[in-house]
């Protein structure tokens, strides 16, 4: 990848945003179990970081996805996985379908303020009984006059208590085929009938505001439908593609930091009279991990390259997500080991990364879902297979 001065400028802005604005506040947000989403998004919006690849018409940067990815990479350096993830939801998980398929009216109302950082958004797919198996969701949106009436429950909603609106996947034709009966609908979260709970106590991503949201006869106007009715499953699959490349990109810097922190620590810390880092089993292992991270980076940029050049990146995006999940577990676990007892303490940066990154293999389609997608695209999954 040959970066242009504009890439470099975005990288510099992003880096400053992360290092000077976000990171000094991370410990506090982690301890509080929440962060001020509106403040953070506004700051990012003012810096022009929230819609780098979205159309200029709605306040975006109008650049290709490689510029977005530069930002995402730098976001990986946030010292609190939950904060990075929240911004990722705002930029790459909740808005791609709206930006691409939403009506002008809808984009004016929701996309513009979101890219400006005036609104916080969320993506509503998972439910208590439908996580990786997206098609199994039960939430319904039934037409009634000019409205949809929504009933159901969404789980694991990042930005859930603070978001102004949610991009909701729901069944608009409960009897239709499960891949053709769903729609994406924008639901303002101050609507009557919306209740939010935050009782999910997570081992990592502690700063993230993760909610369960209940919809009880919630009315939204039909014009809040994104694109065509019944196309929601397809839109969401497309939207997932950005989410998954994002997952690859967002993982890199975090893993690099874990390795760097570990180098730093083991260089200082002595056992048996020499720095821990001087142990060949330690520095060789770190080199092996750096090689893997470099491979993830190359794979991610190769997916971006395909994406911006109009080649189908579905498979590579799934591979990025899978590899990011695998490495999130391997790198943090291996590094934590070299910190000894310190690694077991809560506020240790490697420990936080260990807990935070465990989600990568689970959220946004588990590793096994990625394997299922790759198998399908490669034509090697049996027709009657379970996934």
């Amino acid at each position, binding site marked *: 990848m040959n970066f242009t001065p504009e890439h470099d400028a975005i990288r510099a802005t992003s880096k400053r945003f992360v290092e000077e604005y976000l990171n000094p506040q991370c410990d506090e947000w982690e301890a509080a179990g929440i962060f001020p989403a509106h403040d953070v998004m506004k700051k990012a919006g003012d810096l022009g970081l929230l819609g780098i690849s979205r159309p200029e018409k709605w306040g975006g940067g109008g650049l290709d996805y490689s510029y977005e990815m530069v930002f995402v990479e730098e976001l990986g350096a946030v010292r609190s996985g939950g904060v990075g993830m929240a911004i990722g939801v705002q930029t790459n998980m909740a808005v791609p379908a709206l930006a691409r398929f939403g009506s002008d009216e809808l984009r004016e109302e929701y996309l513009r303020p979101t890219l400006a950082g005036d609104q916080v958004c969320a993506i509503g797919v998972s439910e208590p009984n439908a996580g990786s*198996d997206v098609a199994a969701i039960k939430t319904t949106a039934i037409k009634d006059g000019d409205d949809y009436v929504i009933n159901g429950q969404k789980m694991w909603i990042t930005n859930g208590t603070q978001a102004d609106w949610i991009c909701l996947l729901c069944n608009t034709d409960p009897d239709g085929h499960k891949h053709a009966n769903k729609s994406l609908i924008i639901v303002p979260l101050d609507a009557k009938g919306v209740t939010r709970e935050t009782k999910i106590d997570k081992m990592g991503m502690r700063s993230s505001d993760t909610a369960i949201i209940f919809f009880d006869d919630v009315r939204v106007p039909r014009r809040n439908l994104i694109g065509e009715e019944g196309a929601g499953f397809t839109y969401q699959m497309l939207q997932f593609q950005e989410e998954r490349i994002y997952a690859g990109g967002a993982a890199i810097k975090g893993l690099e930091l874990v390795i760097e922190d570990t180098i730093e620590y083991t260089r200082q810390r002595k056992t048996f009279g020499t720095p821990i880092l001087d142990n060949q*089993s330690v520095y060789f292992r770190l080199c092996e991990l750096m090689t893997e991270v470099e491979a993830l980076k190359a794979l991610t940029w190769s997916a971006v390259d395909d994406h911006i050049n109009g080649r189908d990146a579905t498979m590579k995006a799934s591979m990025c997500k899978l590899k990011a999940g695998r490495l999130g577990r391997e790198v943090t676990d291996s590094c934590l080991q070299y910190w000894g007892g310190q690694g077991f303490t809560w506020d240790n940066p490697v420990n936080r990364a260990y807990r935070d990154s465990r989600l990568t293999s689970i959220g946004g389609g588990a590793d096994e879902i990625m394997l299922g997608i790759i198998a399908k695209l490669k034509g090697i999954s049996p027709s009657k297979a379970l996934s």
Partner: protein
Amino acid sequence: MQFTHEHEEFRRTVARFVDDEINPNVAEWEHSEMFPAHELFKKMGDLGLLGVSRSESCGGLELGWEYEMILAEELGRSQAAGIPMAIGVQTNMATPALANFGNDEQKEEWLQPTYAGDMVAAIGVSEPNAGSDVASIKTTARKDGDDYIINGSKMWITNGFQADWICLLANTGEGSKHSNKSLIIVPLDAKGVNRNDRIKKIGMKASDTAQIFFDDVRVPQRNLIGAEGQGFVYQMQQFQEERLWLASQCLKALEMCVDETVNYARERKIFGGSVLDNQWVHFQIAEVQTEIEALRSLTYRAVEEMNEGRDATLLASMAKLKAGRLCRTVPDTCLQFWGGQGFTWDNVVSRMYRDMRLMPIGGGADEVMMRIISKMTGTAGSKRG
């Protein structure tokens, strides 16, 4: 390993104890990051569960070490690993040296009440700058009249806030770092002992972990265990039991992860079947079960060696290493099949994922085990690497 009716009976007693006295309280103890050590240990003492392999003079039952192993194995049923660890410190980490090398007076004063559950014990080896590298500890015990005057600090002390006494490793002389250390019994209500704020850990939340400072603490010289200067050697021996105990304790804890995961995966539906219906899932579980049985077999064999009076250091170190490895892979593999639930806090598998992460670190890290194994099998090369 041949188990008799008596072994099975003992196993059932421990299992019942865990089910009745520990598991119903685990949620609360985890939440409060503390458990009532004196109360719980007293109940165990009354049942004769502490000191099962020790001589009567120590207040023990004089049974084979395999009873300690069964105790540790069944304690693995605890839904939080911090409780078994606290018990293990009492039975097999802080007390073996005293049982083996202490005099009768010391045994009566400290060991009998400990095995009776009237006292809580701790072991003081690690320091802020000396974990796996035991020989480099800095705490000193300087003779002054009939006393030792102790200065320094100890880190990661399990049972640290509640313990009545600590088996302390300290430098009592200059000389070689392997022959200048001693084990000394230090009552923790002594003047100059300070226990600081709890260490915030990712797991083992119910466990009471302290850093303890010793500032001109005076203890009588009769509190020395065995011979002066033998502390390093005694501690290395004491580690044998600690390591075998830790390996034993992992067995059921890991199996619990597997069993709970199987139950969950059987109920949880995905793509029209259960999660467990996926071959990818049940094959990985089959592999994990195989690894656990291998660890069990290795542990049993090490215990047999020990019972027969042979040097079990190699097998015990191997068991500890293997246990450490499995504590990283098994809960991680299991957690994966829980999806988002696995990422929540009050889930037994995610708790094991956090708790058991300590195993490859505590009691001699995996890397220390590899060092020992390399040395004992003569493969360590001529230089340090």
